[in-house]
């Protein structure tokens, strides 16, 4: 039962990851790409929780703590990402990722 639950959880998180990846690759709006990335991050968080909840030796609250850190880092990351988006917007008057190619080698 527990193995199945783990598998279900992993399937769910994989689906979430794929959805996020698809969003990040197919959208040209930088904010929507950021959203996709958040989805992929959350898929990873779900994995943490699942492996902690269904793992062989569930140590007290390690998975939850890890995920809490991860969410905090994701929040900071989102702040930096949005700040970059605003900077890009100021620079080129839109936020289309295809046009933000000034780092081209």
């Amino acid at each position: 039962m527990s193995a199945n639950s783990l598998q279900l959880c992993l399937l769910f998180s994989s689906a979430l990851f794929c959805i996020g990846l698809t969003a990040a690759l197919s959208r040209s709006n930088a904010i929507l790409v950021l959203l996709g990335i958040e989805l992929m991050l959350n898929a990873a968080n779900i994995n943490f929780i699942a492996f902690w909840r269904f793992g062989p030796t569930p140590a007290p609250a390690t998975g939850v703590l890890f995920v809490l850190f991860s969410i905090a880092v994701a929040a900071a990351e989102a702040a930096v990402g949005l700040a970059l988006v605003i900077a890009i917007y100021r620079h080129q008057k839109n936020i289309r990722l295809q046009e933000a190619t000034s780092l081209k080698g």
Partner: protein
Amino acid sequence: MTLPIQLLWVIPALPLLAASIGALTPRSGRKLAAGTAIVAMAAAFLVSCSALLGALAEPAKHAFYNFAWFDLGASSVRLGWLLDPLTAFMCVMVTFVGLLIFIFSTGYLREDENFARFFCFLSLFAAAMLGLLVANSLLLLFVCWELVGLASYLLIGFWFHKPAAAAAAKKAFITTRIGDLGLLLGMLWLYDSTGSLLFYDAGQGILEPDTLGALAAQTTIGGLAVSTAIGLLVFCGAIGKSGQFPLQVWLPDAMEGPTPVSALIHAATMVAAGVFLIARVYPLMAADQALAGVPFHALTVVAGIGAITALLGAVIAVGQNDIKRVLAFSTVSQLGYMMLALGVGSWTAAIFHLLTHAFFKALLFLGAGSVIHAAHHEQDIRLLGGLRGPMRLTFLTFAIGTMALAGVPFLFSGFWSKEGILHAAHGWSVSPLPLYAGLAAVVLTAFYMTRLVAEVFFGSPRSHSAEHAHENPAVMTAPLTLLAVCAVALGFVGTPAWPWLQARLNGQTAVYGHSLLEGGGLMILSIVLVALGLGAGWAIYARRPRVSQTSVDPLAANAPRLFAALGARLGFDEFYAATFGRMTAATATFADGLDRYVFDGAIRFLIRLGEFAGLVNRETDEDLLNGGFDAGSEALRSAGKGYSRAQTGDAHSYLRVAAIGFVLLVLIIMLGGLR
């Protein structure tokens, strides 16, 4: 009061001091320069007199004072002063004649702008000459000898803006240098053989019996004794300096200098240095006389050269038209007489003639200078004439000098000194030829001097400058008068009846006189010859004086080709120019070619070699080293370019690649069945 031998250096030092003061005097300091020169010369004269007194007290002694000049390893180079009657008489003569000539120069060069420099040079010359006289070392003598040559060069070329004077100065310097080379070689050989150059050094000196015996005992190339060979090399120096055949060519040209210079250097003193040198080293020259097996003796060569020079100078003097050149060739001839006397073994007769000649030849040259000065620098006797009236004092003194030179009997000094030489030549056992040459020169001397006096002082003036000539001031005539007195009086210290001078030179205190008419036959012959020369000159030139400057010389009318040859000095200059001059030019051309093609070629080859090495170096550097680095960095750059193509700047593409990579990673893990 006599002079201590240690202080003998004062005699040359005084004029040297005057020369250095003169060198520092600006051009405007005419009185200072002339004043110091004359005062120094007068002081040197007084010191020389005191030295003479000391020398006469002990005439046989060669007083010397030696000192070390510098040390070289274990050996030390020593110089010294020497005082004997020879040195003392010469010093007195040089300072006295020099003093009179200095005084004369103040008048003669009054209008020259380089007056101060002239007196500086004159003093330098006097210092060098006196240093040469007091030297007790052949080395010191050689140094002073060369300084005399330098002073002569400076003074002949004093009017260096005249090309002829500059050329004459060079000619004199180079010609005498040829002789000096011989002297230098002789000196080196002497030092190599004996280890000393001191004349007298308490038994060790080169003129003392032990050393001379050793030198005469060795033989060298051609069976000559070493002393003969060294003596001949030293004689080369005397040939150059005293204008002997075959190096006599420079002396007549030296007349381009101011006339007081001709009087002082090229008549009275410097040219006598060669005679003095041979008299000084006479023991060395005579060291081989006792040897029987040698091909010839050194003194035989001296006598031969002297006889040739005496005759040659007298012959050429007959055909000259320049007042100073006649006197110059007469000097050559008289120096030949002195060498002849040395060669036949009577060095005292040579020095006696040197002393009397110094006075009467200085007198003649200063008289000529007086004429030239009065006649606005006209020297051609064809353009002069009739000066007997306006220049009475000059005429009288010049006539006394002429009679002394010609050897007019009994009253004039030249007669006694020349008589001594002829007598010595008569007694020479080797060959009678020098005597014949001397007797022939007696006639010629009387003849050309009469010609000179007749052309210059008799007849009528033949040019504008001669018409307006007038007597010179006392500063010029007073020296003439004094010299004329000496030209007469000096003869009486060396007559056969009372040969005081010869005895003192020989180191004797007592005088052993013969009858005044010793060797009477020879004396009568010589008097007849003098009379013949004077009479011929009088008959040809004075009885019918030249009327115009273009009229033909009576001799030239009878023997034009001979006279032209004499006027051209028998072509010695042309001969030397055609042989030695051309040889030198050829050598120079050869050296030039050698330099231009051989040495220059070698250098060019080295340059090419250097260029080639540079080229190889550059090629290696550029193609191999630089090329390797260039290729390496090019590869790196193109690799970087390839990688940079991946940096599209598009965030999507990065993400896409990351995703594909992730998927591949997962697939590998899953399919590989790791763990």
